[in-house]
């Protein structure tokens, strides 16, 4: 079995055994979205433009919060050392980790996002468009987030640092995503932000696992 499948399977198994680990981010997403609706869903003036941004923000933050302790347990138990001395390419291991995180956190957030968007009073077609743009963008969000957690291995209170490091990197994706959502609301459907997000996601999945592997190496001082 290749390194990719080993880590992919074990991550999914762990997620099945400890369900709360992957449920917490979703709960966080819904809570953040719910808190935004208190302000955003307003009858006196149109706030749908803000709603798009709120859904995106909730998705990004929920995605990051799930990643704080991602590698810490592995680093303490010696798993990270095992990744490094394994004969399999490190790239496959980190890619497996990114994809399992996406499946456990990114994808459920996409599936829940239309609910959040409807709560904020968006039209259901716009909500589906928003979910589609999140679906395309979340692989990049997850990959960058995993990189952040690999960089902050062994640092006390790494969660805040993780957000400081990674949120600036989310800005281009956020701008494109919100731009697409707002073009939907203005009924000016435009492919180009979606194509850009696709390009960024494909690029992130291809390049970032190498960087994650490198960050793991640094953390063990190889």
């Amino acid at each position, binding site marked *: 079995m290749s390194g990719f499948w080993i880590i992919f399977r074990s991550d999914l198994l762990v997620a099945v055994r400890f369900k709360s680990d992957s449920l917490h981010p979703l709960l966080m997403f819904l809570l953040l979205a719910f808190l935004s609706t208190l302000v955003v869903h307003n009858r006196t003036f149109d706030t749908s433009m803000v709603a798009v941004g709120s859904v995106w923000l909730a998705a990004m933050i929920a995605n990051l919060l799930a990643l704080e302790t991602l590698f810490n347990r592995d680093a303490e138990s010696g798993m990270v050392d095992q990744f490094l001395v394994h004969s399999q390419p490190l790239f496959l291991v980190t890619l497996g980790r990114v994809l399992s995180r996406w499946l456990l956190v990114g994808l459920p957030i996409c599936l829940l996002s239309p609910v959040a968007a409807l709560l904020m009073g968006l039209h259901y077609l716009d909500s589906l468009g928003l979910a589609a743009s999140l679906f395309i963008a979340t692989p990049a969000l997850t990959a960058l987030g995993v990189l952040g957690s690999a*960089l902050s291995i062994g640092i006390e209170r790494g969660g805040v640092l993780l957000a400081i*490091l990674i949120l*600036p*990197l989310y800005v281009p994706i956020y701008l494109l995503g919100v731009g697409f959502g707002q073009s939907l609301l203005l009924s000016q459907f435009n492919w*180009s932000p979606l194509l850009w997000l696709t390009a960024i996601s494909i690029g992130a999945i291809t390049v970032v696992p190498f960087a994650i592997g490198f960050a793991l190496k640094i953390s063990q001082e190889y």
Partner: protein
Amino acid sequence: MDWIKEKFHRAGSPRYFYLGSYAWILGCYIVGIVLLGAGTVWGLWFTPPDRVQGEVFRIIYMHVPAAHLSQLIYIATAVAGFVYVVWRMKMANVFMVAAIPIGAWLTAIALFSGIVWGIPTWGTGWVWDARTTSVLAQLFLFLGLIALRQVIPDEHRAMMAVAILAMIGVLNIPIIKYSVDWFTTLHQPASIQIGRPVSIAMSMLWPLLINTIGMYLLMAGVILARMRNLVLDRERETEWVRSRFSQSAG
């Protein structure tokens, strides 16, 4: 070709860098301050006011050089990070440490001067459009690099991590560069672009070019001086530093 190789290797050695950099720093400081002074005086007193914007436009003589240079420093940091990760060159590490705070300050100056300019011209100091937001993201990237360096105690590990983050963050640079062309932003597209006629009057352009070159040189001098101090600090246990300073003391 051999002498280029030799120069390159010598520049990578802290000792030769320390000995050779003094003249460069002095030259950069003198020429930089003269050009920056000349460009600023020309731009503030001798250039006619803009027909539409009036006197406010003169902020570009600070805004454009700072914004331009801050992006260049970000790219240079990422390149130095690559060099450090691949070849473990000590001087690349030193360059990153020296350049990151300068880049952060220049980004802050660009943002601040943009706000000051925006209040009378756009009617608002801050808009959340693609250009301003991505430049703000660059400031946070710089601050993130500083934060990451501070929390990891081991210098080598810290700079390796900083290098990785800097390389990934290069993604933001084309977004800043092309944000004014791709999105509809309040920030105007660049007036000076390679391969196109310049859409700015020559009497306004000259001080800007002089100021830009002056800013480049001055900041090169500042970064080199910071690198020189860092080299001295890191090599304080070595033989050449000890002998050099025991001589001058005794």
